[in-house]
């Protein structure tokens, strides 16, 4: 049976031709027939779709065989700008296909939903990244939301501008009295054209754009971009840079989780927790600032290494931070655990079924709260995490409460990771006179174009970044796939059957990125 074949065997058998200069995982160029066979194969549940993206005359998808962990990229030439859609067998493909359509003019045949996604008829151009961008539609109609029929149903449109300091997006609730029958999201408001802006840029400039894909994950997106470039160009970064990157990534994870735990409790009408957690978050950001010169550590992870090193007192400062967190965080966890009125709001609210999480390949706290325990730091894994001790917490309840607990456990794990890194950091610090050079190696472009991919665990889940570096050292194509792509659709499922008033709480417990998704 095909479903039991390892990924590479299958791809070879259905006529995939391996492409040179693609790392670290192989890319197979498929025939149309092979692509169709692959779709049939995806109907089984042994596979995760990791991403799907367009080029002017080509479509790409990244896959993982979940049992073996084998990863491959497949691509299909589509000279007519058409390809058979993956969305009938993998619903998570749909929005990615709609994005590829809006940006590259690629049509997914037999897709489950052909409506535009990122294109709101405001750009003054259609298919902006295709070979032949088109004039805007002369009379753009309004976006058609899915129709809902039934007695006693009413619709509540919310956004794009929301109450509070939140990113913009539109939510359309169909409710029966207080109960949500359906939520439909409409996103794309903060589409800045990141993929288009990266095209043709020198690597260093594109890296600055990668750092601004989603500000809360600036370290993780920078790391994903750097690792993809380094995979393409076969660059080995100095060990000290590898450890500094992990240090920044864990600081970012702790800061975000603390903020999220506080914000979720606040939306469950417990403002005390927000005040406490935001102080802890502030302590982390200040330590990051003192260590790396930027509170969010933006532009500090760069292709080839890092752009900032710890000051001499850095390790001591970090150990102090960890000690403070170890002193102040547990009592707050005890309060969360013991507060009945809080639990009343978070337990059983916004449940996502395990099957759905697997089907969408959702990771991060959303996936791990619903039984999907994948973490890119372990699978496929990258340095230095193979050399560090940590656990990946997994729960199965899938409700708001479980998503809070995953974050609590991950804060604890990341504190331990920061301690390990601070104590065992290899290499020499910069020194007071700054004479020790930064752990950073130069990048040399290849003979021809080279392609690379990376999977990096952000606080939100797994980021996939794919790049093609041209022979002249510029970025030919970069596709950064934020974890939010596979989590946003699940929010629609999570709120079904809950009351409208619980939406802010559910939404906060997901905390998907608008910017990371809209690009």
């Amino acid at each position, binding site marked *: 049976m095909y479903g039991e074949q390892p990924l590479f065997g299958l791809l070879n058998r259905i006529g995939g031709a391996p492409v040179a200069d693609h790392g670290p995982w192989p890319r197979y160029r498929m025939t149309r027939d092979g692509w169709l066979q692959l779709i049939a194969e995806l109907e089984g549940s042994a596979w995760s779709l990791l991403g799907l993206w367009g080029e002017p005359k080509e479509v790409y998808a990244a896959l993982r065989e979940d049992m073996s962990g084998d990863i491959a990229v497949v691509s299909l030439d589509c000279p007519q700008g058409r390809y058979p859609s993956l969305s009938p067998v993998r619903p998570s493909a749909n929005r990615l296909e709609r994005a590829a359509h809006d940006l590259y003019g690629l049509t997914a045949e037999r897709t489950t939903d052909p409506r535009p996604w990122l294109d709101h008829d405001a750009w003054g151009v259609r298919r902006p990244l295709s070979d032949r961008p088109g004039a805007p539609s002369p009379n753009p109609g309004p976006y058609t939301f899915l129709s809902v029929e039934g007695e006693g149903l009413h619709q509540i449109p919310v956004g794009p*501008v929301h*109450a509070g300091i939140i990113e913009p997006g539109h939510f359309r609730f169909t409710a029966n009295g207080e109960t949500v029958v359906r939520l439909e999201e409409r996103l794309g*408001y*903060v589409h800045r054209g990141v993929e288009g*802006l990266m095209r043709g840029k020198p690597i260093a400039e594109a890296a600055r754009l990668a750092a601004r894909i989603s500000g809360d994950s600036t370290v993780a997106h920078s790391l994903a971009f750097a690792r993809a470039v380094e995979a393409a160009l076969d660059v080995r970064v100095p060990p000290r840079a590898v450890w500094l990157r992990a240090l920044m990534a864990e600081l970012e994870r702790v800061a975000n989780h603390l903020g999220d735990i506080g914000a979720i409790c606040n939306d469950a009408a417990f403002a005390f927790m927000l*005040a406490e957690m*935001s*102080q802890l*978050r502030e302590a982390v950001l200040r330590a990051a600032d003192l260590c790396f010169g930027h509170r969010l550590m933006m532009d500090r992870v760069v292709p080839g290494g890092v752009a900032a090193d710890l000051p001499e007192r850095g390790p001591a400062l970090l150990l102090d931070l960890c000690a403070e967190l170890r002193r102040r965080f547990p009592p707050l966890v005890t309060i969360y655990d013991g507060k009945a009125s809080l639990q009343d709001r978070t337990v059983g609210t916004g449940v996502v079924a395990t099957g759905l999480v697997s089907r969408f390949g959702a990771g991060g706290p959303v996936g791990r709260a619903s039984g999907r325990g994948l973490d890119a730091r372990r699978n496929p894994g990258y340095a230095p995490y193979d050399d560090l001790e940590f656990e990946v917490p997994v729960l199965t309840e899938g409700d708001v409460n479980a998503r809070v607990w995953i974050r609590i456990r991950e804060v604890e794990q990341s504190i331990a990771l920061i301690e390990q890194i601070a104590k065992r950091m290899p290499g020499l610090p910069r020194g007071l006179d700054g004479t020790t050079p930064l752990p950073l190696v130069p990048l040399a472009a290849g003979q021809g174009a080279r392609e690379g991919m990376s999977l990096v665990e952000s606080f939100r889940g797994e980021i996939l970044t794919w790049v093609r570096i041209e022979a002249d050292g510029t970025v030919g194509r970069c596709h950064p796939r934020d974890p939010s792509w596979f989590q946003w659709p699940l929010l629609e499922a999570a709120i079904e059957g809950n009351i409208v008033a619980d939406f802010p709480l559910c939404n906060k417990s997901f905390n998907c990125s608008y*910017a990371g998704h809209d690009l």
Partner: protein
Amino acid sequence: MFKHILKSLTGGPVTEAGPAPADPALAELAGKLEKAAKARLGRSLSIREVDAGSCNGCELEIHALNNPIYDLERFGIRFVASPRHADVLLVTGPVTRNMREALVRSWDATPDPKWVVACGDCAVDGGLFRGGYACIGPVNEVLPVDLHIPGCPPRPAELLAGLLALLETSDTR
């Protein structure tokens, strides 16, 4: 729980009001801001934040203004949910074309007199997002901007300084 609250009550404020050794600049700023807020308004200043294409980095630091350390509310400055209750629109991002209309609508809904603050490099001059098909660029290409606060993102102390500048210079309106 009660033990914890009691501790927070008796432990003294965490807010950096007095000259906290780590951040004397912030303390000084806080003092000035307080004075300016009282002199200028004698009431509260309400801010409506509008994300017009931010990467959300600016939002994180704006959020930090509300934490007990910066505690913006002690100056009578608070964030409100509706533009109809706002004196100030605090705008972030390189104004995506997809957000242009919503931004203009928020401005239209804000009663006069009103001020617009462009927060962050993106809002100030388009940042790295100038020149694409998807962004308009600086906020002042869409709305009249009264104050620019550069930074990527601006630090909370810089945001406080910016709001102070706004209070000090906006007396004439």
